[in-house]
């Protein structure tokens, strides 16, 4: 990678060398000193990880065992925050909705991203333009993209309703983002597909291009058709990349917030309220940080278990 391909270290033209061994300050003291220097370089990372990752992790667990109002003193009340979870109906509907949304997004986004990756995997004229076009939505922040779609799908200034009316598909006023639970969900799905398809395409592309061409050549010689090649060669060899992409998609969807907060406002009638929106509501509208922490801990545990299982399953299948 680097531009400097130096001649062997023992370049004779160099200044007089004090040591012959390539391992620098020799001896145990030297190694100790170097370890200390290394630890010093890692210290800022360590401070950040401890202070803003490990401490909050422990704190959220502790908070979930307390009655912890936004203002005022906390008091121990375990397991009230957890038993409250069982009774919260909005939380239940939000959990179901989030799972449903996650399944829909993971399937659709994967299919679209894989399709795009296959389309642009070979070098041919125009491929650079296509890749850029599919990837460009990533340059718009997700919150901005949600606002963009709010206007795009609106009846006031958006072209979508007019366009569909032109073809006689709808008539009159349609409120895509808040009209019905299904159209609100569909609006969010459309937004996420537009914004993230190119990003996932790029990751899948790296996996596709890592498959050696001679494997395909061998399959062609053996008379495999396109579908067989795809099922027997492409998919199995892509498994690690697919595992990564699917994990990113499911994690991202289970933690969905911006798209519903901005685009649908959780409506109509809380039908598109996601889990993280419930956490936000508990903490900053009902001012009950303890309850919000309880839900966070459960969500955290589900995510960790889920990711572990997913990696296990995908790894086992590949071996």
């Amino acid at each position: 990678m680097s531009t400097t391909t130096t001649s062997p270290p023992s370049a004779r033209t160099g200044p007089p060398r004090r040591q012959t061994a390539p391992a620098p300050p020799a001896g145990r003291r030297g190694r100790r000193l170097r370890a200390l220097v290394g630890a010093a370089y890692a210290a800022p990372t360590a401070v950040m990880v401890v202070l803003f990752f490990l401490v909050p992790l422990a704190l959220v667990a502790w908070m979930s065992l307390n009655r912890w109002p936004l203002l005022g003193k906390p008091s121990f009340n375990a397991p009230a925050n957890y038993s409250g979870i069982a009774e919260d109906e909005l939380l239940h509907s939000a959990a179901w909705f989030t799972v449903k949304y996650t399944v829909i997004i993971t399937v659709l986004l994967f299919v679209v991203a894989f399709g795009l990756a296959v389309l642009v995997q070979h070098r041919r004229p125009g491929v650079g333009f296509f890749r850029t076009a599919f990837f460009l939505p990533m340059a718009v922040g997700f919150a901005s993209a949600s606002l963009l779609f709010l206007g795009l799908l609106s009846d006031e200034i958006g072209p979508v309703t007019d366009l569909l009316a032109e073809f006689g598909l709808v008539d009159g006023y349609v409120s895509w983002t808040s009209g019905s639970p299904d159209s609100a969900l569909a609006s969010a799905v459309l937004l996420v597909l537009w914004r993230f398809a190119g990003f996932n395409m790029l990751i899948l592309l790296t996996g596709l291009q890592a498959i050696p061409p001679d494997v395909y050549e061998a399959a062609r010689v053996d008379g495999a058709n396109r579908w067989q090649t795809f099922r027997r060669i492409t998919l199995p060899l892509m498994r690690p990349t697919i595992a990564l992409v699917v994990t990113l998609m499911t994690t991202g969807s289970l933690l969905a917030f911006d798209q519903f907060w901005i685009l649908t406002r959780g409506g109509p009638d809380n039908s598109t309220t996601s889990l993280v929106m419930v956490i936000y509501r508990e903490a900053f509208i009902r001012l009950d940080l303890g309850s919000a922490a309880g839900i966070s801990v459960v969500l955290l545990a589900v995510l960790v278990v889920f990711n572990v299982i997913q990696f296990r399953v995908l790894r086992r299948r590949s071996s």
Partner: protein
Amino acid sequence: MKDTSRARWGYYVTGTALAILFLFPLVWSGFASVRTDTGFGLENYDRLFNSANGIELRHVLNSVVVSALTVGGTLFIATLGGYAFGRFRFPGRDVLFLLTLAILMVPYATILIALYVLLGWLGLEDSLIGLSLVLITFQLPFSVFMMRNSFEAVPLELEESARVDGCTTVGTLVRIMLPAVRPGLVTVGLFAFLTSWSEFFAPLILLNSTDKFTTTLAVVNMRTASHGSIDYAALEAGVVFMAVPCLVLFAAMQRSYVRGFTSGAVKG
């Protein structure tokens, strides 16, 4: 040969149709932001910046401060950390590296509640510095990983000859290593900027007063705070205003950045 020419046409037609679909929302938002009742003009931008709950100069400055702190902080910590993980052996190195990567496993929506309380204890509630520290933390897994790989890729001889010349490790880092890992620094800095400039959820939780709002928060507030009619055209102006710096950076660095992603996998 008829088949291959049909396949080529299929590729062009599908690709072009999809490219139009993906580019359309971007082009439309630009168009909608300058369309007015009477034709075209900058009235929507005027309302964006001058209406009662529109965005103010201080919101833009807040965004600039947060982005600068996040990019600077991320580069500083990830460079030192990447150098340590890539070139030194010390007790606890592997544990610390794994813990840094584990931040990815615990997406921050779940611990932001605790970070809100913690920053309050540190006297950093409702503060741009506190927000930047949190944003830096969540940039670390990607950035430290990227910088470690960059440092590992630098030939050992380069560093050793510097040491033989009597450079201290700091001198080696600054004079020899930093120029060699520049592509990594560019990618890390670009990502830190894109994230901190557009981030919505963390500022929403950690900033309370409208004085401290970032631009993203202020623009979204125009939508969520309006109980009556939404000024869609001004919102689209806000979208364009937010997106332009990112698109410019993207265009300038897209080459190195897409290549960074696919490096090692591309075969000529």
